């Protein structure tokens, strides 16, 4: 080693007056004797090489970074290949490189750039490989570590976002369960099993080795007594815990599949699901081994489990609501029409396109009661849709069923119903809740005719289609039912001859709007004659079809039709 290049090892030793010289100023010595004081004062590593690749000078920072660098020797290709190649002009790009180098303290990331030749001759710098070259080296290991941390954080965020998207809006418990385990593999674990208990049922979903669609199964909640560890873990709250291998055996018992992860470490993570469901994810594999609460992977796991919990809760709630809707729908479904001697009934009901499919229209028919053999009927409409309408129309029907046992004359029954509904609303401090309806009864007579008594409240008046095709509007009107204390209601009597049909309909028929215009009473009246003589069910079906065609795909309100006919 050339003694002139002996460089003090401590920065403090190189503090000379030359340090005060700006680094861009020409140094007093020729390039081969670049003042050690000058370059040693730099934080950046500086290496000066000649055209043969021999190191002419290297400062303390450079030697710290590249311990194998020897002044006076050719840059060791084996030890510092990237710098050697760069010096010879073979590097990546023309004037910079980045490399990972061995270092006694572990790998370092080194970034180098070619700088101006330090010496009495100012730039221009020589072409790569020609003459001396000066390289500035920087240890960027820290930056890399920060970048890696950032990238890892971004990757975790991307995974969670993707999982969130995949789980969001599935709203189906089984499908959500399958996705929860499918998404966990391989990012979080090599295998995953989800167990959840809702009502008296246990649902499990499990990934299988080798991938493919996760398996899913249901079993009775009572089966949990056979798997006490699973049951205990289900009841747990809080973060993931390592579990003993027996849990794997129990999961195998529960699912009938091989134990998850085949011997890999397992941890159980209770899933925070609001209210309706207890759930547990068991993850298998080396990824599940960490237990440091500050570990970002641990954080990722709990974030994932939280998202899974939210998705399962949403799905469970949705299913519960859909079930509620179905139960309501069933209870409010169009009732079966009775078979009555001397009177024929027909009906059609088409609910508006609503999620819960519970509309505001309703009808009821009760077969003959009493010595006169009168059958009672009711067709009406409450304001609103969905649960609110279902509750109100339920109230109207129940009230009608009860009150008509006490008062069968339509014109007296309607005011009672009005008062009952108003009282029910008043006790609850609700806003106006009213219905419109036609109600009445039908009495078949010995001569084959049917005598109808009708009363209406706020509802379109019934039509009568005579056997000869003529159409009459029953002259009856009345006010809303359940809206006004002082309401007045009209009544009418109609005699149906053989083959005559009385039609009750909801305003969804006449207010059906196709391309702009309402279907309207007139169109209804002109549609009817074609149905003369047809059975009442056919009359209703034909009308419903005509209205649907008129709508031409447009949204509509409920449509309800009830036809009463004296057999021909």
């Amino acid at each position, binding site marked *: 080693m050339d003694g002139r290049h002996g460089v003090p090892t401590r920065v403090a030793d190189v503090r000379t007056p030359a340090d005060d010289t700006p680094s861009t100023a020409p140094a007093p010595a020729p390039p081969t004797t670049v003042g050690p004081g000058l370059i040693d004062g730099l934080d950046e590593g500086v290496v000066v090489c000649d055209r043969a690749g021999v190191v002419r000078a290297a400062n303390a920072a450079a030697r710290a970074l590249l311990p194998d660098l020897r002044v006076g020797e050719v840059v060791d290709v084996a030890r510092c290949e990237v710098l050697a190649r760069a010096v010879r002009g073979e590097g990546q790009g023309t004037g910079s490189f980045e490399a990972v180098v061995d270092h006694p303290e572990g790998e370092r990331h080194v970034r180098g750039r070619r700088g101006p030749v330090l010496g009495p001759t100012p730039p221009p710098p020589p072409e790569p490989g020609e003459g001396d070259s000066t390289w500035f080296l920087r240890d960027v290991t820290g930056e890399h570590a920060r970048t890696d941390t950032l990238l890892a954080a971004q990757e975790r965020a991307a995974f969670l976002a993707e999982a969130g998207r995949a789980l969001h809006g599935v709203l189906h418990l089984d499908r959500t369960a399958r996705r929860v385990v499918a998404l966990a593999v391989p990012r979080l674990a090599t295998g995953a099993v989800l167990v959840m208990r809702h009502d008296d049922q246990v649902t499990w979903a499990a990934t299988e080795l080798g991938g493919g669609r996760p398996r899913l199964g249901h079993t009775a909640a009572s089966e949990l007594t056979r798997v006490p560890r699973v049951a205990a873990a289900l009841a747990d709250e809080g973060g993931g815990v390592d579990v003993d291998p027996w849990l794997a055996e129990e999961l195998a018992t529960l699912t009938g599949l091989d134990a998850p992860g085949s011997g890999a470490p397992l941890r159980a993570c209770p899933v925070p699901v609001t209210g309706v469901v207890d759930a547990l994810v068991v993850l298998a594999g080396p990824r599940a081994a960490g237990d440091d609460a500050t570990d970002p992977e641990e954080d990722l796991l709990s974030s994932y489990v939280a998202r899974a919990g939210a998705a399962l809760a949403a799905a469970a709630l949705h299913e519960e609501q859909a079930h509620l809707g179905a139960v309501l729908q069933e209870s409010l479904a169009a009732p079966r029409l009775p078979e009555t001697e001397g009177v024929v009934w027909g009906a059609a009901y088409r609910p508006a396109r609503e999620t819960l499919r519970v509309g505001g229209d309703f009808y009821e028919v009760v077969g003959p009661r009493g010595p006169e053999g009168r059958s009672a009927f009711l067709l009406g409409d409450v304001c609103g849709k969905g649960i609110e309408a279902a509750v109100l129309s339920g109230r109207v029907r129940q009230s009608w069923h009860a009150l008509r046992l006490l008062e069968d004359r339509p014109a007296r029954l309607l005011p009672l119903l009005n008062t009952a509904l108003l009282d029910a609303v008043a006790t609850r401090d609700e806003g*106006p809740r009213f219905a*419109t309806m036609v109600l009445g009864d039908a009495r078949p007579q010995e001569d084959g005719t049917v005598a109808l008594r009708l009363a209406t409240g706020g*509802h379109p008046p019934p039509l009568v289609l005579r056997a000869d095709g003529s159409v009459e509007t029953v002259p009856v009107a*009345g006010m*809303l039912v359940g*809206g006004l204390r002082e309401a007045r209601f009209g009544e009418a009597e109609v005699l149906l001859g053989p083959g005559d049909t009385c039609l009750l309909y909801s*305003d969804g028929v006449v207010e059906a*709007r196709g391309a702009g215009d309402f279907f309207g009473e007139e169109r209804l009246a002109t549609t009817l004659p074609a149905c003369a003589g047809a059975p009442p069910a056919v009359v209703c079906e034909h009308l419903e079809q005509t209205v649907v065609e008129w709508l031409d795909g*447009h949204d509509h*309100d409920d449509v309800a039709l009830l036809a009463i006919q004296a057999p021909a």
Partner: protein
Amino acid sequence: MADLTIRTERTDGPDGQAVVSVGGDLDYDSHGRLEEAVDAALDGGRRPAGLVVDLAEVTYCDSCGLRVLLGAQARAHDVGATFVLRGAHGQPARALKLTGLDQVFG
């Protein structure tokens, strides 16, 4: 199907009127907005002596719409204001007549 439009104008003074002019379809989907507009018109700060709801531009009114009108009348009376419904024609007028509300709103 026409979107619901609502415009409220006020006249000042002791007989100040709040005139809520409604247009478009007043139905299940939109009736809540008229309800809010009526509440705002009867707001305590500038309580009018009378509330007028003008249906001249309303193209369709279903039972939910009627319910809001009935509620508006009750609300107006609760705060000591008069209630006038005007301008209904076409289907809204038929709906008012069919339900007997034309007599109620007189």
